[in-house]
């Protein structure tokens, strides 16, 4: 049982603030993904939880115990590093056994746990090899097995798949999800890859400039971005944004057409996902710039009032450069943002 609570954690490096007052609770056995562009502070936050970095402010609690003053070895965590960090002078067997030997576990138990985790990660035939004789994917498996063999309360992963090639990454992703669900540990996973985040997470914490912008389920993060940044960061292609001019009570003019909007005192911003529009009469007038058929659907980049506006249509849709389309947004999928605070308006 290990719930993780992060209370008001901040980290400053000299004049630079890497993390501003982070508050986050991760439930027992939850798979939490910290997602953000490089330099957003996600790795720093993970390292603070691991104890490899000390917070400038705030508290870290793991399983009801305050741990921010404890060294990593006393926190009940195990960590998987981006560059694997498999010890090159030890065999795969001794790498996996390393943590258990530090806990002075009897040899039969060490042996049993090493064999079991090796089997789980499909590396039982590599146990006598050294790290130099392994491929990147195999090294990654050893690193995960070494963490799992500890049977930790919390497993922390820092971009564990980013050094693997695309195909292997896909395979490991699915396997990792299965193994971790089976092991019933709480997991925190850092990545900059939104597809990885969406496919693995129970909950995604989207980070931006040292703050958590939104922490919610993958679908919620995708459908209802809490801030403009989340909408523009998640989704490929990302959300479309257009200025919305207030024309009356809950009435807004977006690119010439009038839409019903939320209660607001002034002008706001209209947002819609590219796949949430249909071609029909009385919509947003758009000029087609680029047509990219992708098989299952067709991505069309258009121009609306001089702004780039993307729409994903069925691959049967016929459109060519220079065509004028009328795009009708689905009413229930329209989102509105406050242009000043950039947060969503309900």
């Amino acid at each position: 049982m290990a719930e993780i609570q992060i209370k008001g954690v901040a980290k400053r490096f000299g004049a630079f603030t890497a993390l501003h007052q982070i508050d986050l609770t991760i439930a027992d056995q939850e798979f939490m993904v910290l997602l953000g562009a490089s330099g957003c502070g996600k790795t720093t936050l993970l390292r603070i939880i691991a104890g490899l970095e000390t917070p400038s402010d705030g508290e870290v609690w793991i399983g009801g115990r305050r741990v921010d003053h404890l060294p990593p070895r006393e926190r009940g965590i195990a960590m998987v590093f981006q560059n694997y960090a498999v010890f090159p002078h030890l065999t795969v067997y001794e790498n996996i056994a390393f943590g258990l030997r530090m806990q002075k576990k009897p040899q039969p138990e060490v042996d049993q746990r090493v064999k079991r985790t090796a089997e789980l990660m499909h590396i039982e035939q590599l146990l006598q090899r050294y790290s130099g004789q392994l491929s990147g994917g195999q090294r990654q498996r050893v690193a995960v097995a070494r963490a799992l063999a500890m049977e930790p309360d919390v497993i922390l992963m820092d971009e564990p798949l980013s050094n693997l090639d695309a195909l292997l990454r896909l395979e490991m992703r699915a396997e990792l999800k299965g193994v971790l669900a089976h092991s019933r540990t709480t997991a925190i996973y850092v990545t900059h890859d939104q597809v990885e985040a969406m496919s693995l997470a129970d909950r995604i914490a989207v980070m931006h400039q040292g703050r958590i912008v939104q922490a919610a389920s993958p679908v919620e993060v995708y459908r209802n971005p809490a801030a403009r940044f989340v909408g523009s960061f998640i989704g490929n292609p990302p959300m479309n944004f257009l200025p919305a001019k207030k024309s009356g009570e809950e009435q807004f003019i977006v690119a010439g057409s009038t839409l019903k909007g939320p209660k607001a005192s002034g002008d706001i911003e209209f947002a819609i996902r590219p796949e949430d529009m249909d071609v029909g009469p009385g919509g947003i007038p758009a000029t087609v710039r680029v047509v990219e058929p992708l098989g299952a659907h067709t991505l069309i980049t258009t121009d609306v009032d001089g702004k780039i506006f993307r729409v994903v249509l069925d691959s049967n849709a016929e459109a060519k450069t220079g065509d004028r389309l009328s795009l009708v947004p689905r009413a229930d999928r329209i989102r509105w943002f406050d242009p000043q605070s950039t947060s969503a308006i309900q």
Partner: protein
Amino acid sequence: MTAVTNDMPIAPAAVTDARKAGNWLLIACIVLLCVWVLLPIYLLLVNALSSPAQVTGFPKRITPSFDFGSLSFFLNFQGVGKALWNSVVVALLTMVLSIGIGAPAGYALSRFDFPGKQAFRFLVLMTRAFPLPLLALPLAVLFIRTGLDDTAFGLAIVHTTLSLPFAVLITFSLFSGIPVELEEAAWTLGCNRWQAFRKVVLPLALPGIAASAVFAFTISWNEVFAAAVLTIENRTLTAFLLQSINVSPLYLKFAGGAALVVPALIFIFAVRKYLFAMWGIANR
């Protein structure tokens, strides 16, 4: 088209000629350098391994006769045994001191950020900038006052100051070559800082540390100035030879020279890979 095909062989021929000349120049330089280094060593060995009569006689031999008369006479010479022993003791002490002090400094330089780090690195190198003769007199006075004069330990301290920069820089590059993630992984797997160092960093750095120790040994073994100034009764081999070689017969000089050069050569050869690494020359 024909013009082009006719021209084709001419241009490459000129290029080949230039390349050939360049190759010859390179080979000539290499041969010259090798002769420069190897010829004295060769002559030294030939004469050390020849009988006293052959060394002083004429014509000179080109191959050694493997007569150990000179060497055995040298080894049985009054004071040589003791000087050899002194040399070994001083060199071993130097080795222990420079690794004991140098390796932690190298580790700190590679792992920690501290104020004045750059200045510290510079100062480590600067210790080599002071000529030893300049320091010899004040050191001798200081050593006589503190009772360190004419002791193996006193001389080892001086030799340590000479070898320490190398020990620091070699171990610094060694530790920098070991990813910090390996240590962090060890911490998360239940190690404290010292255990992580002993179980992960040390096994990986050990060959390099040994090399750096051997290098310190060699520096001390070869050092003559401080040894000659700071010791009287307990002379090291170099100081002993400096003192007595002028009055010795020729074959004894050769034997003494060989006794100094050969161990140093073997040691340097054994650790060459790490010295290359320190100087930034790729060796693979």
